[in-house]
């Protein structure tokens, strides 16, 4: 009986790891699904604004912008009252989604290529490339499993992590300005987006 219990405990302990062994392919599937859905939206008829609304929904489905926001702002967030934290994460979500989509929309009718996924700690790096007639542009997604589904916790464009990029910008801003001023800057930058239908 103690042996059976030990086996059960061992199985329970190893379960996440056993799941993780098959997980990288699921992460690739999640990225593929998102990019193909985005491509469908881009190719479908409709105004630019209509497409942006659809694309935001598609991107939000994969990008864990709250995790990215927390990572980008670092310890400064914890010192803020809950309503300020919530506002920052909401604004960061808009900033991130906008930046991601704007980069994606730079390409006209893009073709995507995929590289074999790589495991890095608890994350899976899904390497993709946007293939154009003259060059390839590498966009890697740092995927993590959250609540049974794969989400991107960072996007690395041409070797530069978007989250790290924001982290550097926020750190630089917060050296001379207050958190409230940072929020104000983000509010002002995102004003047109606030006005757009989400």
């Amino acid at each position, binding site marked *: 009986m103690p042996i059976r219990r030990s086996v059960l405990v061992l199985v329970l302990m190893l379960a996440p790891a056993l799941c993780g062994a098959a997980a990288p392919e699921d992460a690739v599937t999640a990225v593929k699904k998102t990019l193909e859905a985005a491509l469908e939206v881009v190719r479908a008829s409709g105004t630019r604004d209509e497409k942006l609304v659809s694309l935001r929904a598609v991107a939000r489905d994969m990008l864990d912008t709250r995790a990215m926001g927390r990572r980008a702002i670092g310890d400064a967030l914890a010192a803020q009252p809950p309503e300020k934290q919530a506002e920052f994460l909401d604004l960061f979500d808009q900033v991130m989604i906008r930046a991601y989509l704007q980069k994606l*929309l730079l390409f006209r009718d893009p073709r995507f290529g995929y590289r074999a996924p790589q495991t890095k700690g608890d994350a899976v790096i899904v390497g993709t490339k946007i293939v154009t007639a003259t060059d390839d542009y590498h966009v890697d997604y740092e995927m993590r499993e959250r609540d049974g589904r794969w989400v991107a916790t960072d996007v690395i464009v041409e070797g530069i992590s978007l989250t790290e*990029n924001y982290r550097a910008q926020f750190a630089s801003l917060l050296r001379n300005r207050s958190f409230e001023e940072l929020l104000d800057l983000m509010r002002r930058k995102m004003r047109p987006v606030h006005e757009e239908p989400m």
Partner: protein
Amino acid sequence: MRSLLTITWKDLRLIARDRAALLFLVLVPFVVVTVLAEALAGSDTGSLLLPIVNEDHGPVATVLIEALSEHAHVVEVDRPEAERLVAGRKIAPAAIVVPEHTSKRYLASRPSTLLLLTDPAKGAAIGAVKAYLLLADRKAAEIADPLAEELLVMEERNVTGSRSSIPPAEQNVPGFSVMFVMMGVLFGVAFGLHDEREWGTITRLRIAPIPRLALLGGKLLARFLVGLLQLVLLFLYGHLAFDLSLGSAPVALALVMVAVVFCMTGFSLLVAAFARTREQVIPLGLTVIMIFCALGGCWWPLYHMPPWLQQVAQLGFTTWAMEGFHDVILRDRGILDVLPGVGVLLTYGMLCLAGGVRFVRLDPA
């Protein structure tokens, strides 16, 4: 009242007698107004030639080119061709170089420097290019990181000289100097010849043992020297009063000045030959002066005019005169660089002289 009407009728008959003068009187305003209106119509949207060196070949360059194409006639060329269009052929005010990996840097939110190769002699058009670039940059910013710093930085490089900006006086002083010297030489030559005919002094000169060519040559040389002195004084005044640059090659400037005044002198003889009477000199002279100055870029830069008019302007010696002065003053060009233009001006002047000598009348009126 009756006597007043009689005098009026007499004068009208006198005016009507010189049909050519009457024709010029009526036609001149129409011709000048048409030419000025066309010239001032300016370059229509898209007529500004804007070479782009696309070393990026990525999506950012594509967006920039599309955005710039809405305002200018964009041509994709390689770097030597871009420099040739700006500095060599001087038909483009500026060229934009989109460096390699701009798109990759842009996507990674890293700034890139666009190189603007300029010909400061075309200051206003460069201003337009910069404005177009700002608009394109704003368009590109729509696709940029909303929090990031400026991702497309511009660096201006003069490919025709050492200066990056040209004060307006450096366009205006040479232009108006050319106009006033032309007025002096043209009216001087034309009135000089007609006065000699009307006063009858030409008969004395003709019976004197002086060859026809020497007679004409002497009169023209005097006007040439006066015109040259006037031009030198105007440039010196511009230099002292308005800080007009005289370039880095005084011999080249002197060469251009001599060629310009020589050409003016020959041209003046031709105009004098076509003005059959003294009355015709003013309307005919004013017509050619106004048209040649307007088309030649004496009053405003040539590139402000529509492209077809810029082509027509190549037929006028004032265009070559202004180009010669711009080469020396604004582009710091030397003797060898101005020689082709000087050659054109001297040939132009010789042809005008030949035509003038052939048609001018030296008999008494």
